[in-house]
């Protein structure tokens, strides 16, 4: 039972720290996305890019800006990967293959950070820092921008489809939020023992007398934004299991906190932007509730779950770092799949079957518990619209959310959003399991093999980026399939959300009365969580039955 105390203790510490930090950052985020003033450095950026930061964009322009900016990012990253051998600071690494460069480019621009390669053995400092690290900031800022635009649209009334300016949102997200918080976090991480240097690989003699080349680098700086922007792409292949990235239980807890910070704070900011703090608190409550359920189940699964080995060893330790233990690994796994981070400090392939199922379910929820930076918020808000639609009818009014009527056009967009990921995940998995090139990547047969494929496709489609392990994904087939899943899984929902924002910004904001369905009460939060669980459950239970559930029961 003694293991339970630290397991619960770390969660309590996490909750306490977040309870302080989230409202603070939330307030800052709300100001960031609504203020009319520009900082000096921002003005310089706007002038350099020849942008009018005060232009109020129509949602179509906003969406085209997001897509255009991301397209440029993909092309640039692809070029960096393909031409690496000709560039400085490449540590002698050669060009990435075409499919690999495509996969990596899409992966980082979509905030997925799925890595088919070993970071330290495939990419030089230039590609890591100027390509991937830049995308770690801007892909996160893009997601936050879209969520902020959505929140603003809900707050507006009869604004003719105008939802703000993407470039301003992007620049502010980076300059005012991600850079300063990442800087502070990086310093904290260095203090906790994370490596930060620009050395060439150092050759050391090992205990057995052999020689090992140890790659150092700007690890702490990348680590900070990796977690803060729910990116997840590690400097090292072992990701946060590597002692240079995540040396102690304390750094482990800090990294978990960083993953959860912005997604939760975005929910708080949402309440402030729409002018009703309780609405933000309700969304936050739904996110937090789902997350805590995930943590509880995963921790139980790893510490006391079924399986002969775990029972004999008093916990499932295969694939875990002893310095974190089962609880520290379970909490990390719940956080990385509940947010769309995808960093790992343990091999998810080695989680117990129910534990792996919970991790998978966290991603399949569509990344809303609490999800990616920005994407978690708009994902949850789309679910809130679905909830309002059905529940609103049950109070005898045509449905409305925050004073915006939900009519046919809105529901078409919401339905498109809700359909996208299940479609990508299920069809993607079915394709992978029915062609030899897909099957070739699986390490096992039967239920566990299914889990490997399902996990990979779910991770890509939901822009999580964590790998189950066991899957050899660096093949043209998997690189292409997962690349397509990441791309569609990111931008299709984004465009639909922006279109919905356009509708909301055009509509009149109706005042709430006693007959209006209240969307800030605990009952609504429970209902929202229920809708998320039922919708996702009904969609994925059949596949999960054949994968983790069958495995758990054997």
């Amino acid at each position, binding site marked *: 039972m003694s293991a339970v105390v630290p397991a619960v203790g770390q969660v309590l510490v996490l909750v306490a720290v977040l309870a302080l930090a989230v409202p603070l950052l939330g307030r800052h985020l709300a100001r960031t996305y609504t203020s009319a003033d520009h900082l000096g450095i921002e003005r310089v950026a706007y002038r350099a890019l020849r942008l009018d930061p005060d232009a109020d964009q129509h949602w179509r322009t906003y969406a085209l800006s997001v897509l255009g900016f991301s397209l440029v990012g993909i092309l640039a990253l692809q070029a960096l990967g393909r031409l690496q051998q000709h560039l400085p600071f490449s540590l002698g690494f050669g060009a990435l293959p075409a499919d690999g460069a495509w996969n990596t480019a899409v992966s980082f621009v979509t905030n997925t950070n799925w890595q088919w390669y070993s970071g330290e053995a495939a990419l030089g400092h230039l590609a890591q820092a100027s390509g991937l690290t830049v995308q770690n900031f801007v892909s996160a800022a893009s997601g936050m921008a879209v969520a902020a635009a959505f929140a603003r649209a809900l707050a507006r009334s009869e604004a003719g489809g105008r939802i703000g300016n993407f470039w301003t949102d992007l620049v502010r997200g980076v300059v005012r939020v991600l850079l300063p918080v990442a800087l502070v976090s990086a310093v904290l991480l260095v203090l906790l023992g994370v490596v930060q240097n620009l050395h060439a690989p150092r050759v050391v003699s090992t205990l057995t007398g052999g020689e090992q080349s140890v790659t150092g680098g700007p690890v702490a700086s990348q680590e900070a934004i990796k977690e803060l922007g729910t990116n997840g792409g590690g400097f090292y292949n072992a990701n946060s299991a590597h002692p240079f990235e995540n040396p102690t239980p304390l750094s482990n807890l800090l990294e978990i906190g960083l993953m959860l910070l912005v997604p939760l704070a975005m929910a708080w900011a949402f309440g402030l932007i729409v002018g009703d703090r309780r609405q933000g608190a309700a969304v936050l409550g739904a996110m937090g509730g789902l997350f805590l359920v995930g943590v509880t189940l995963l921790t139980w699964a790893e510490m006391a779950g079924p399986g002969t080995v775990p029972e004999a060893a008093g916990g499932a330790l295969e694939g875990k770092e002893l310095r974190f233990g089962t609880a520290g690994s379970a909490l990390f796994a719940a956080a990385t799949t509940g947010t769309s981070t995808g960093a790992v400090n343990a091999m998810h392939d080695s989680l117990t079957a129910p534990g792996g199922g919970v991790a998978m379910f966290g991603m399949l929820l569509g990344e809303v518990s609490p999800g990616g930076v920005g994407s978690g918020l708009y994902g949850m808000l789309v679910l809130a619209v679905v909830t309002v639609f*059905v529940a609103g009818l049950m109070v005898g009014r045509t449905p409305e959310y925050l004073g915006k009527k939900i009519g046919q056009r809105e529901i078409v967009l919401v339905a498109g959003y809700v359909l996208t990921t299940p479609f990508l995940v299920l069809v993607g998995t*079915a394709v992978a399991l029915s062609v030899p090139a897909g099957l070739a990547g699986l390490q096992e047969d039967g239920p566990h093999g299914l889990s490997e494929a399902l996990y990979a496709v779910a991770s890509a489609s939901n822009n999580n980026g964590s790998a189950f392990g066991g899957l050899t994904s660096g093949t043209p087939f998997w690189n292409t399939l997962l690349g397509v899943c990441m791309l569609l899984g990111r931008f299709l929902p984004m465009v639909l959300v922006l279109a919905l924002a356009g509708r909301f910004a055009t509509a009149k904001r109706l005042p709430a009365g006693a007959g209006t369905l209240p969307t800030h009460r605990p009952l609504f939060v429970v209902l929202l969580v229920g809708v998320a669980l039922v919708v996702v459950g009904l969609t994925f239970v059949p596949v999960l039955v054949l994968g983790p559930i069958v495995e758990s029961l054997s």
Partner: protein
Amino acid sequence: MNRTALLDPAQLATALPGALAKLDPRALVATPVMLVVEVGAVLTTVLAVLDPSFFAWSVTVWLWLTVLFGNLAESVAEGRGKAQAASLRALQTETTARRRTPAGTLEDVPSTALRAGDLVVVEAGERIPGDGDVVEGVASVDESAVTGESAPVIRESGGDRCAVTGGTTVLSDRIVVRITSDPGRSFVDRMIGLVEGSERQRTPNEIALDVLLGALTAVFVVVCATLWVVADHSGARVPVLVLAALLVCLIPTTIGALLSAIGIAGMDRLVRRNVLAMSGRAVEAAGDVDVLLLDKTGTITHGNRRAHEVLTTPGVPREELVEAALLSSLADETPEGRSIVELLAGPGEHAVPAGAVLVPFSATTRTSGVDLADRSVRKGAASAVCAWARETGGAEPAEVLAAVEQVSAAGGTPLVVAERRGQEPVRLLGVVHLKDVVKDGMRERFAELRAMGIRTVMITGDNAITAAAIAHEAGVDDFLAEATPEDKLDLIREEQAGGRMVAMCGDGTNDAPALAQADVGVAMNTGTTAAKEAGNMVDLDSDPTKLIDVVEIGKQLLITRGALTTFSVANDVAKYFAILPAMFVVAFPQLDVLNVMRLSSPESAILSAVVFNALVIVALIPLALRGVRYRPDSADRLLRRNLLVYGVGGLVTPFVGIKLIDLVVSLLPGL
């Protein structure tokens, strides 16, 4: 209008041919959910033919029954309007109309040849050939065929009582009617279309819900199609027949099958209360209403002023005042006069003293009363009675004037009672307080509306003081005094600018702009054609209170949709527990743990789920037609109650239902 039982076997039998006709896939395109069921049924039929087994045929039959039950719900709902439509059609038999030619002569033409603008002459005993306005004369008209009300009504040229409906009969006198509708587009034509449901268009919210259901269906199609591949990989090959059964069980068939029946039944409930909605959109809007504008007279108050109390003057004994007031009112047949007798002498007949000469009320004297041998007694408006007193040199005691003031201030109407003995000066005896009486139960009704989040605004031509007093007594939230039609229109615009939905009722031509502007405008059938054209509902009973019923019916319609959607989706959880273990238990025996209902065999489990899925549609037809019970309450409490009943109920019911069906199905020899 006759009420029939909600669902009796005879109704089902008559609806059956219609339900079979709707199996045509073209009829099902509008409801994607049921179309998918039909495609599934066709697929399993083919599979059952190719590889016959008792199980395959059972599943096939029940899938077809699922489609049929859905169609049956719609047919039953439509059938309820058919009888009514038939009686309305009887009104449309062709008659001969006497059309006035431009030269002024009359010509006989068939009623179907009449066009808008034609003038026709109708005499006692004749049927009015088409909708129109009376332009000459006055007549009593029997409108029972349309309204069900047997008492004849007066229709006269000019004013707000000029509209006549084609098919109704003139009982007395002769009128000239200007026809206002072309053949086939009359009021009765529209009524027939509405009650039959043939003119039914899906409402915005219904379309939105259909989209959501379509999306859910699409998800489950993908789920089942990919499950085929995934299961194959897992070595648990699933027969296509079973996948089709799973698909039909998962897609929201319950709400998909009942959705249009709910809409038709909602309109039908209005028709049963003698309200005709010109569009389903209006019924839906009624559920959303935030502000109700109610005319004071006839809606909130009885419209007649009734005696409330008598106020004495110092020096005049109460008995004397009572006696005089009674005397002056015995001959008064106005409701006010009768109410004085009722207040002072109790109900019943009271004899007029012998030799009394009755002086009826006239607009010039503004008094009424009685002349006896030695004295005259009068009651009437304060100014008129005081003038009488001054003429004869009588005093005007300050107390009487104060009482008059007091009554006026309280929103009442003061009647001064006076008498003159012989040639003596007139003596003012006291004041009768006439009060506008608020109908019983209005306060409670408004409190209910408030709980529902609806604000009521009383519209009256009275001055602000009177209006405030009545508004306070009736418990309305606000009032608009000395209201002109323009004020009404402005008020509606103002509320709408604030994002609120407004409902109102009206009958006069000058109400037409406001009726058109309001989101829900209920025109009284007694009203003008202009008013009826402007509103989106017509109340055949011309009862303004019905606006409240209309709002409740609108809400009930929306709640029924939401409740059955929730129920339908919640049902899926249990169906998974029935079907998924059954599908895979052969390949993975450990999945038997999930067979929590302990269903007897995989085949019987799947069949039971399919049977339950079909039967639940039939079981819910009465609920869809009647609508879920609606009690005015706050949104939060409504949600909690409906979630408990239809959400939690929807989770639990199928576990019980499927288990019970399995107990029966497992006895079948072929399984």
